[in-house]
């Protein structure tokens, strides 16, 4: 029985609804990242990726589903942030392939497209791991295909997929030990489930309910350890518009203005008195802000800047400072110290970002396009940015080699290995070799209690992570955690140890630690200001 043939508009609204639902879940999803570090946030990354996808679809006035799906896929690709974002973009690529050439679609088409999406997503990952978003997508797609056998109505097919996705999320801890230890379900899988669930609500005509409710986290099938309190999420998207104005009126209520505007944007600053108020805010819809403010009084000195343009301008300026070179380098870094350090090592374009803020594919692409050469070496410096960096290669006519640096010490080692006398391929080889010779220990405070690698960790304890992968030490005192980690990492074999101290650490403490490393291991030790947020120390062993 065919009652609902859906068109491109339907597909758009399905995912707009899904994104709205996902947005509400983002803080919860962020909080279930496996490592209790201030990490690239899965929930936020997925939302940002979806926002790009929808933006692109909005610009497309074509109502054919094939065309809308293509726009979604393109937008998702350009906006992909973090690993979850990249997988999401591959999901949309597969969906677009499945819906190619169609003006409308039904449940059968959707099921087929889901199957394609699942395959595409698996292919895009070098080492697919079960118990992640990939498994959830695969299970959802299987259920959709089963459902079609009974009924190919879109809403029934999607309902089956959502149900199966939920069950699949609940099973992730039994597939992935690291999730079981931490007592959480997979964050990316949870995100996909919520996205599809939101789309289903639209088809059921229930999307208005999204406003009042909030998605819940799937409860794992196995019994889990009770979790400590969630950490607050603080994250700011660097794009949209930066609005500034002065509001003149009578009996203005600063507190209320602040409260009202808080919902409409980020980086909000409200200052002044009851007759004159200055407002600074970042928002995707500055018109809404102005509309709100004009109701309260007269506006003066209004400036609205497109931050994307500002960013492009910034990149252009960087380029003009640089002469054309044979091979140009692009990298990602946060922390004033690291940026200065990288700049001191030679000409390099630095895309701001890292652990807390993964740059999008588009930002990386912009930097590559602006670089003063057609041969580019791109170093992501973070394991969550590696896949986004790989996407850039197919989007530019420039020759781009991605050196898969997973942390800043690897990025620095690769940069230093750059040989001015060699060509792009030879350099890429030498640099890849160099990153395998450096180990990185990252020291931070646990943002919540958990269990990882059999270690019981309390909130606020210092933890050390080796090569972004293994939580190898935890202790109440920073010195204890550092030396336990150094011991486990085999510091006695290192020729040179570099201690990069973060924004919250003191140089004197770093020097003391360095001296103790020299005394214990009789190795060269250098102390350098990294200025990185969240991480008290990043220590490299070479």
């Amino acid at each position, binding site marked *: 029985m065919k009652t609902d043939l859906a068109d491109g508009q339907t597909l758009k609204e399905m995912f707009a609804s899904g994104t709205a639902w996902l947005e509400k879940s983002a803080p919860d999803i962020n909080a279930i990242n496996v490592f209790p570090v201030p990490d690239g946030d899965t929930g936020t990354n997925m939302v940002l990726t979806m926002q790009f996808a929808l933006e692109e679809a909005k610009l497309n006035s074509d109502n054919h589903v094939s065309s809308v799906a293509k726009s979604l896929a393109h937008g998702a690709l350009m906006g992909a942030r973090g690993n979850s974002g990249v997988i999401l973009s591959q999901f949309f690529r597969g969906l677009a392939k499945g819906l190619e050439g169609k003006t409308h679609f039904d449940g059968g088409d959707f099921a087929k497209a889901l199957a394609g999406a699942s395959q595409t997503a698996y292919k895009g990952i070098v080492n697919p791991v079960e118990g992640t978003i990939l498994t959830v997508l695969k299970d959802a797609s299987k259920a959709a295909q089963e459902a079609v056998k009974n009924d190919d109505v879109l809403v029934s097919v999607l309902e089956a997929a959502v149900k199966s996705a939920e069950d699949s999320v609940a099973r992730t801890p039994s597939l992935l030990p690291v999730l079981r230890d931490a007592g959480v379900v997979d964050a990316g899988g949870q995100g996909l489930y919520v996205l599809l669930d939101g789309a289903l609500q639209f088809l059921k005509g229930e999307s208005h309910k999204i406003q009042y409710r909030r998605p819940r986290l799937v409860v794992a099938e196995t019994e889990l350890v009770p979790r400590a309190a969630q950490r607050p999420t603080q994250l700011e998207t660097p794009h949209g518009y930066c609005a500034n104005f002065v509001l003149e009126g009578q009996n203005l209520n600063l507190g209320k203005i602040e409260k009202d505007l808080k919902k409409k944007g980020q980086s909000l600053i409200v200052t002044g008195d009851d007759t004159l108020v200055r407002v600074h805010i970042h928002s995707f819809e500055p018109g809404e802000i102005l509309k709100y403010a004009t109701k309260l009084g007269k506006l003066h000195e209004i400036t609205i800047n497109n931050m994307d343009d500002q960013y492009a301008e910034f990149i252009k300026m960087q380029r003009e400072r640089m002469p054309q070179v044979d091979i140009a380098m692009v990298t990602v870094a946060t922390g004033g110290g690291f940026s200065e350090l990288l700049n001191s*090592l030679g*000409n390099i374009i630095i895309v701001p970002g890292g652990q807390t803020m993964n740059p999008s594919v588009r930002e990386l692409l912009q930097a590559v396009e602006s670089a003063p050469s057609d041969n580019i070496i791109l170093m992501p410096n973070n394991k969550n940015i590696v896949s986004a960096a790989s996407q850039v290669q197919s989007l530019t006519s420039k020759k781009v080699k991605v050196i898969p640096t997973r942390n800043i010490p690897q990025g*620095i080692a690769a940069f*230093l290995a750059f040989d001015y006398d060699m060509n792009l391929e030879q350099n890429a080889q030498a640099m890849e070799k160099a990153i395998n010779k450096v180990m990185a220990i990252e020291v931070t405070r646990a943002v919540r209690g958990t269990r990882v690698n059999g270690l019981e960790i309390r909130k606020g304890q210092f933890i050390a992570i080796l090569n972004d992968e293994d939580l190898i030490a935890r202790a109440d005192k920073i010195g204890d955690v550092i030396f336990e980690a150094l011991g486990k990492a085999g510091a006695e074999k290192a*020729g040179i140890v570099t201690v990069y101290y973060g924004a919250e650490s003191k140089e004197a403490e770093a020097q003391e630690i360095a001296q103790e490393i020299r005394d214990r291991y009789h190795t*060269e030790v250098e102390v350098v200001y990294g200025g990185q947020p969240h991480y008290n120390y990043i220590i490299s062993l070479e």
Partner: protein
Amino acid sequence: MVKVVTDSCSDITPQLAQELGITMVPLYVQFGDETYRDNVDLSTEEFYHKLETSKIRPTTTTATPADFAKLFTKLAEETKEILTITLSEKFSGTYTAALQGKAMVSKDCRIEVIDSQAGAGAQMLLVISAAKMARAGANLEQIADWVRRAISRVHIRMTFDTLEYLRRGGRIGKAQAFLGSLLKVNPVLGIKDGATFPIARCRNRTQAMDFLVNFVRGFSRIEAVAIEDATTPDDLQTLAQRLKDVVPPERTYRSKVSPVVGTHVGPHVLAVSVLEAE
């Protein structure tokens, strides 16, 4: 027989010069008012001792046209053919001085002046081969022709713990890209088109030593190698030991950078030069 002449920046030891019949023309090092002939009035050891104890920073000057004219005139009494190989013209006016000196000679003698487009060990390897060809009876054209073709087959890599000396002396060239590093690095430089050129950066001396060894290993056919230090004979010994299996010791020349070269590279330079076989 062709007489082979070179300047003191080729770092050829007096013993080897004598053995191969090479005539050395010294450049000059100046500590304030005191002037020393490179490797004649001042040995490398004495120079570095002075560098450490003297408050005055040394400067260097080229050999003069008159130095060359006097030498050429004297040599013209025993030979009709003189080949002069100088330090890169981009580092020093010695090449120009040699040409001017040649113009001042009235004796009936053919004189060729070639810019090695190199210095130190790289220049040394060209001069040694030229001298050996001369002893084997080759004429001026043959040797000059060989040297000109061989220039592109000599390669030098030098590692430092600081580029400060090179910068101060204005010989840093494109390697200024390596200046200002906030991280302690041991830069590796080469010479390209007659000027210093940045190659790579190592984190410490051990890595830099590895780089030099791997550099030599990268050649499939090597005619000769020159290795040099300034004040670190132990490092030079280690380097020689590690290269023993790559190049036979009889084709490995060991030396120290001359005071003039030392003024510009500093006390912790370690260099290796390779002459590729044709």
